[in-house]
Each structure stands twice: as structure tokens, then as C-alpha cells.
């Protein structure tokens, strides 16, 4: 596969949809989650008001981010935590490794954190001889398969229970052919309890960091984050600087939106608030920039920093549901990933803003009102301007521009098409150059154009 193909969402999606039955199954699984979200959102009369407030709070925080970061550091330090600052992924990984080495950590358990995925922390730590176990069940499944998560909230949404059964049989010794989710989850519970008991340190992501109190909030349904950090005495929490919110009371707004948007639950089973380390333990907080301050400078895409990573835009996206998380080849897939990906690497991710029908559903469900489809549309303009599209597409656009811009040429082209195309051999029309005709047939051409019919009926009007 050439680099060009690898960098193209449509080509990668083609691999996924080659299996029609699986595509359908994936689509339905995510639609099920979307439907649960709708039900949960409708149960809250002030839902739209909450979205508006959440958006405002985030915009306010972004505007005053340096002040809030300093306030957070001051408060967290006062409560006994140690705060570290990392300008990029490399910095972040080095800081985490240093803390682990200072504490002679050999085995580490980790709960879900898209940030550490973004920084590729796992392979880095493993390269330094530290065992890293992802403890969220979905994340553990993909980790054992040596794959990244395909969804930010449901990491193993693309994997069938038969595949989990086979994997667990091979790795955990479950019965061959067993596919009952309850049985498999029970096996994982026993396996991971052992890992929790033996861990020397726990790493968590962070859902919200409160500037006013220096506190961290971590949400899980499984309880894995809490188990991982309350057995060993060392807790490292890694967060992007956009996770800040001003006041503890703001949590009321965000927590009412987050899990309803994510999975349709009224709140996660465990919503833990950490203010300082536990008695006798250590809490290290790593604040990571890694490109966020640059996004904040960009007026076109700044609002993407409001994202609270609920995954609602993925679940509702007709393209994501039918192309799978891996087709984006980006830590964060789906609509929000298609905005963030090109911000990180526009050349490699140029095709992501095109993995979108501009239906606008993502913008409708986003709990913090990120104008997702507007941003994706804006991206297309940027990508064309920066000449990042492949030459075929550029040429096609150019030709279309010339034809559509000239009345006589447009009419002539229409005439020619109606005369000539029906007589051309298929091969000349449906070939590699005609991406449009890949899954579509041209309609039967009418004898006359609309203009010709109109003129015939109403007489020739003066030229406009």
C-alpha cells in the first residue's frame, strides 16, 4: 500500500466495509448507544440550557486558561499533590517514567486515558522495562490484541464476543468456544484483580480538573481507576490543559451532560474526586500541552478544545458507524477526531474532514456545542488552499470550477454528455478516474435539459 492510500480515509474504510454483515452490526451497535443517549437527554428538561452553560464555561476557561492553570497548580500543591508541566508527548512520557523510576515501579496499572494514547505512553514505558496493564475491560481486550482503541469511550466496540472468547481462551485460559459476556467479564475480573493486587503504581486520565479547589474528577463504570490507585500508594494523573474548569459547582453542569451523552446513563457508577494524595501516598499530576496552546491560538478551530470526550459525535456519525474507528488512523476517531487530526498533522490527515456528509448530527448531539460540522467544512477550505488534496481531486475541482463558471460551456457540456455518454463503452465511464461511479450508476439521460424543456413550454426568455 502506498503512503497516499494509507493516508486516505476512504481507502481504509473500504477495507472495513468489505465485510457488509460486520459493517451493519457495527452500525447497529453504535446506533443503540445513540438511542440510549437520546432517551437520557430527553429526560432532562433543561438539557439545552445545560449545553449552553457548559459551552460558556469552557469558553470562559479557555480565555483565562493561564490564570486557571496557575490557580489549579497552587491549590493542588496546597492539598499535597505534585504538579508537573509537559510541553509535548515526549516531555510527558519522560516525566512519567522519571516518577516511576524514582519509586522503583515495575508493574503499573492504568485506567482509560486518551491523553496517554495520544502520547504513546504504553510502548514507551514497556521499552523501559515497566509492565503496563490497561484495566478498563475494553482497553484490556484491545491491548491483548496489540491494537489501539477504536472508540474513545467504547474501546472494543468493533470486536465480536466470539473474538473476545477466542482471545481469552488463548491468554486467560477460558473455555474454548465460550462467548457469554458475563462469563468472559468474570474471567477478566479475576485476571485484573491479580494485576491490581500486584501493581506498584496506578495511572489515570482525568475528566475534569477544578482550578478553585485543585481537585481532579475521574469517571468510570467499572471502578478500575479507583482500584488501580487506592491499592498502590503512587497515583499519577495525566491530563491535557483543556480539562480545567473554574469551580467545583461547574461539575454539576458537566456531570449531568457527560455520561448521558456518552452511554445514556444518568451518571457513571463511580465519579471520584481527588484532592491531594491519600494519607501516606503520593499524587503526581502531569499537565500536558502537546499542541493545545497552538489550537487555542487558532480562531477557526479553538472551540474544539471545549470537547469533554464523551463520544456522542462518534456514535451518531453515519460515516464513523459504517467505517469503524481504525479507518481514521488517529488517536481520536469520528467527527471530533477529524477536526483534531489535521490540526496535528494536516498532510497525513487531509482526508478526515471529507469523511463527513455534513449532516450536522454531531453538532446537534455535542454536549458542549462544538460546531463540529462547521469546523469540518472549514477544514476542507483550508486543505484545498494548502493544496493537500491528491491531484485527481484537485484537477476534477478545477475542471468543475471552469465549467460551472461559464454559462455557454456548462450548456455545451450538458448537451455533449447527453449525446455522447449513452453510447460510450462502460469501461470509459466507470473506471478508476471516476470515483463517483464506483458504487453508483449514471441515471438515464433525458432527451432535453431542463432549460430546453422550459423554453419550449414558456418561450425563450431574455438571457440572464
Amino acid at each position, binding site marked *: 500500500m502506498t503512503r497516499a492510500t494509507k493516508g486516505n480515509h476512504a481507502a481504509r474504510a473500504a477495507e472495513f466495509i468489505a465485510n457488509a454483515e460486520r459493517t451493519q452490526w457495527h452500525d447497529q451497535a453504535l446506533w443503540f448507544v445513540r438511542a440510549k443517549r437520546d432517551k437520557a437527554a430527553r429526560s432532562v428538561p433543561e438539557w439545552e440550557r445545560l449545553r449552553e452553560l457548559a459551552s460558556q464555561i469552557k469558553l470562559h476557561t479557555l480565555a483565562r486558561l493561564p490564570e486557571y492553570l496557575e490557580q489549579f497548580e497552587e491549590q493542588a500543591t496546597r492539598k499535597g499533590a505534585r504538579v508537573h508541566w509537559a510541553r509535548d508527548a515526549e516531555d510527558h512520557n519522560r516525566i512519567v517514567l522519571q516518577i516511576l523510576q524514582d519509586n522503583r515501579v515495575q508493574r503499573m496499572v492504568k485506567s482509560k486515558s486518551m491523553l496517554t494514547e495520544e502520547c504513546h505512553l504504553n510502548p514507551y514505558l514497556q521499552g523501559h522495562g515497566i509492565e503496563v496493564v490497561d484495566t478498563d475491560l475494553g482497553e484490556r481486550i484491545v491491548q491483548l490484541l496489540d491494537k489501539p482503541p477504536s472508540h474513545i469511550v467504547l474501546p472494543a466496540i468493533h470486536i465480536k464476543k466470539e473474538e473476545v472468547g477466542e482471545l481469552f481462551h488463548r491468554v486467560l485460559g477460558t473455555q474454548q468456544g465460550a462467548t457469554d459476556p458475563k462469563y468472559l467479564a468474570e474471567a477478566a475480573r479475576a485476571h485484573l484483580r491479580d494485576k491490581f493486587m500486584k501493581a506498584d503504581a496506578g495511572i489515570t486520565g482525568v475528566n475534569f480538573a477544578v482550578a478553585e479547589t485543585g481537585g481532579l474528577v475521574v469517571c468510570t463504570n467499572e471502578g478500575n481507576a479507583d482500584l488501580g490507585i487506592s491499592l498502590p500508594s503512587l497515583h499519577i494523573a495525566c491530563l491535557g490543559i483543556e480539562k480545567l474548569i473554574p469551580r467545583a459547582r461547574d461539575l454539576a453542569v458537566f456531570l449531568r451532560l457527560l455520561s448521558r451523552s456518552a452511554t445514556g446513563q444518568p451518571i457513571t457508577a463511580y465519579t*471520584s474526586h481527588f484532592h491531594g494524595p491519600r494519607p501516606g501516598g503520593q499524587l503526581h499530576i502531569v499537565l500536558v500541552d502537546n499542541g493545545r496552546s497552538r489550537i487555542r491560538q487558532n480562531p477557526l478551530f479553538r472551540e474544539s478544545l471545549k470537547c469533554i470526550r464523551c463520544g456522542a459525535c462518534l456514535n451518531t456519525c453515519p460515516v464513523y458507524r459504517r467505517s469503524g474507528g481504525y479507518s481514521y488512523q488517529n488517536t481520536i476517531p469520528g467527527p471530533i477526531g477529524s477536526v483534531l487530526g489535521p490540526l496535528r498533522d494536516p498532510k497525513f490527515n487531509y482526508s478526515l474532514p471529507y469523511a463527513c456528509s455534513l449532516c450536522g448530527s454531531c453538532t446537534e448531539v455535542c454536549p458542549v456545542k462544538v460546531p463540529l460540522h462547521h469546523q469540518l467544512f472549514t477544514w476542507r477550505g483550508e486543505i484545498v488552499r494548502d493544496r493537500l488534496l491528491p491531484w485527481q481531486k484537485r484537477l476534477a475541482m478545477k475542471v468543475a470550477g471552469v465549467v460551472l463558471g461559464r454559462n455557454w460551456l456548462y450548456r455545451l457540456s450538458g448537451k455533449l454528455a447527453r449525446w455522447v455518454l449513452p453510447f460510450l463503452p462502460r469501461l470509459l465511464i466507470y473506471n478508476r478516474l471516476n470515483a463517483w461511479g464506483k458504487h453508483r450508476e449514471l441515471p438515464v439521460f433525458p432527451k432535453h435539459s431542463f432549460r430546453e424543456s422550459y423554453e419550449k413550454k414558456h418561450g425563450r426568455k431574455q438571457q440572464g
Partner: protein
Amino acid sequence: MAASSKAEILKHLRSTQLEPVELPELDEPWTTYQDRAEQFAEVLQAVGGRAVRAGNLDEVNRELDQLPAYAQATKVCSLVDGIRKANVQMADVADPHELEDVDFLVAPGQFGVAENAAVWVTDQGLRHRVLYFLAQHLALVLPVAELVDNMDQAYQRLSFAEPGFGLFLSGPSKTADIEQALVIGAHGARSLTVFLV
């Protein structure tokens, strides 16, 4: 090294002055419920837990005895005085790993939220907070008078002035990571009973 990263990040952020946006006030007429206990019980059931009304501690004990998980439990830890079967003394436990085999925990809830059946619990007076997550089954004792309507009221009760740990618990531990099939008892408690007293 760390100091310079901090300076660099803050400098980078300060180099762009953004239009100020007002921080909204949150005093609004949020949803309230006619019968908070009923709403709480309904939501708790929907998230896989169970609410049980109990007049007093005697009734809590009687109701606990009815629970198969409790009846079969060998090691029971209670942070609520007067739970008859409690036999794990937290004061004797130096290392949290020793709590691995606790079958049942009974703990007090500080207050509950009708909207989402979340109960606020803390590690105040609790040596090892891991107990909330390690115990196989969990029961909380929550005064019915301590139910608030919604999350906004909940946060108005919390100050976070001092270091410490607090947690909104809503239902037992769960996962749907295998084909979206709901499984109760992922890593933490396999069941949650809330006694409204």
C-alpha cells in the same frame, strides 16, 4: 526542566489574548422532584442497584440478613455502628491489600441525589478507601432526609477545602465492553443496596 516547560506553556498561552467570556452564574430553577425518595429508588433500580426503605438500624440488619450475598458473606466490614455481622476491624488492617477478601461492606452515605441515584461517600475516618472498590458487595445507609434533588444542590453541599477523597456512587460496578451486553460486577461491587432510613 519542569520549570522551563511551565514557563514556556504559560508564555505561549499568554501570547494570545482571547476575548473574555463571562463565567455564567448557576442559580437557575433546576429540576426538582415531588418525591425524592421515589425518584432516587427508581433511578437506582434502572442502574442496577436497589433501594430499600428501613425505619431504623434494626430493620437494616433484618433486611441485610435477607440478602443472599450478605447471608453467605464470611468477612463483613461495617463503617456504620450497630451492624451485627461486622467482623473486620479496620484498625487492625495496616496494608490495604489485606482487604482483598472482604465480602461485604456496609458504609454510611452522606447524602444522595434523586436525579441520578448517586450517593456521596468519603474516606473521612476510613483508613483504606479501596474498601469501596474491593468489597464484593456493598450496602449504603442513607438518611432519607439527606436526599437532594439534583447535582447543583449536591455541589452546594461540598466545599473541598481540605485534602480528601469523595465519590459519587451510583449503582454497582458494571461494564458493557463486550458487544454492549451489560454485565454487573466488572471490577468493583457486584451489588449495591441503599437503605433509606
